[in-house]
């Protein structure tokens, strides 16, 4: 699933959400992006859960935890920094996606509305960079910088969260 072309996620969300709801919307864009995020989040979460030592899981069972209690009380708290790291990285990746939004959230010159076409930085860059006016091209460059900085900040945050573990 990690290799899924992002444009296909957009096409899927177009068929599943835009056609059924009858309009482009932020919802559809969100669903398309979350489809792209799921494999990344799943892989990192699986790794983080596998990293929890078997000895600790044995201890939980030995104390009389049911398997689900062991998961909730012992395994997840230990794995949480790793899981959150994965989520933050996936958000950072999704923030830069353009293709899936072209069929779903589309674009709007106005303020955010979840049930209507909505602007996103990535699509804004795409649209404005093709415009003939110097102004809009400069805006596209600025938006690129903002996007890069956001992704950088998210990456730094994920590093900080990932470092806090005691295993």
């Amino acid at each position, binding site marked *: 699933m990690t290799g899924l072309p992002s444009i296909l996620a957009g096409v899927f969300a177009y068929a599943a959400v835009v056609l059924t709801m009858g309009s482009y919307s932020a919802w559809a864009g969100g669903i398309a992006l979350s489809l792209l995020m799921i494999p990344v989040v799943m892989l990192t979460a699986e790794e983080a859960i596998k990293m929890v*030592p078997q*000895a*600790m899981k*044995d*201890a*939980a*069972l*030995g*104390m*009389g*935890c*049911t398997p689900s*209690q062991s998961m909730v*009380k*012992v395994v997840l*708290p*230990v794995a949480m920094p790793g899981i959150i790291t994965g989520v933050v990285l996936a958000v950072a990746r999704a923030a830069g996606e353009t293709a899936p939004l072209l069929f779903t959230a589309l674009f709007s010159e106005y303020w955010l509305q979840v049930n209507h076409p909505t602007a996103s930085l990535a699509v804004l860059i795409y649209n404005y960079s093709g415009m003939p006016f110097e102004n809009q091209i400069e805006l596209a460059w600025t938006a690129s910088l903002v996007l890069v900085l956001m992704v950088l900040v998210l990456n730094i945050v994920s590093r900080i969260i990932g470092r806090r*573990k*005691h*295993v």
Partner: protein
Amino acid sequence: MDTAPLATSDAPIDDMAPGDVVLDCQADQIHYGDFLAVRDSHVPIRKNQITGFIGPSGCGKSTVLKSINRMNDLIRGFRFNGQVHFHGMDIYDKKVDPVSVRRNIGMVFQQPNPFSMSIYENVAFGLRLNRFRGNIAKKVEKALRGAALWDEVKNKLKNNGLSLSGGQQQRLCIARAIATEPQVLLMDEPCSALDPIATRQIEELMVQLKERYTVAIVTHNMQQAQRVADQTAFFAVDISKGGRTGYLVEMAPTAHLFENPKQKLTKEYLQGEFS
């Protein structure tokens, strides 16, 4: 979850005198898949005594111990033929929930394995799991004192349990196990990952623990069994049928077993002729 009747507080076990059999483990056959790991091992565990399990590697002593609180259920292919009598019932009975067995029979593992949470929360874990409604702080202190760890950690109860030394971690695990006051405490080579000083502390602790609990311990170390155990069970490996099947050779009060073993095999093992 709390369905099995094991947890009753007025259980007849409290009326038993020290030395009575509280838990009678009759392991006729223990399989992992097609592999017969243990056969014909009958180990009675006596109240307020330490029962030591000794024997060469792969003789099934840990397998028998872990069968007592059904820790092996999680291993794929595990099958237990036999009975473990506890509180007048068989803990392998279909009606018995393994989770409640484990809440009544505590376990300390080979590797110290505290949870990645504060020292206090480690000890309070079992109490919270059992929805204990009384004064948790008092119980935690009592368990930590019981595990001879209180003085070392009383000023840093909020620190992570994993920040302690190996020996302290193992005592923390003992405190965690005794916080819920289990009737039987199983220890699977609790000192094998520890240095000699920490080992001595744990051994002294075990002798104190038997005043209030019933302890069964697997050990690699014959001297350790000699120092702490009241009863000792000697297991060996039978390779006659192709596999490596462990079985109980002899069980007796420790002094008898070491000074006057009835079986030739026991004698050879104790004299260090094989290990």
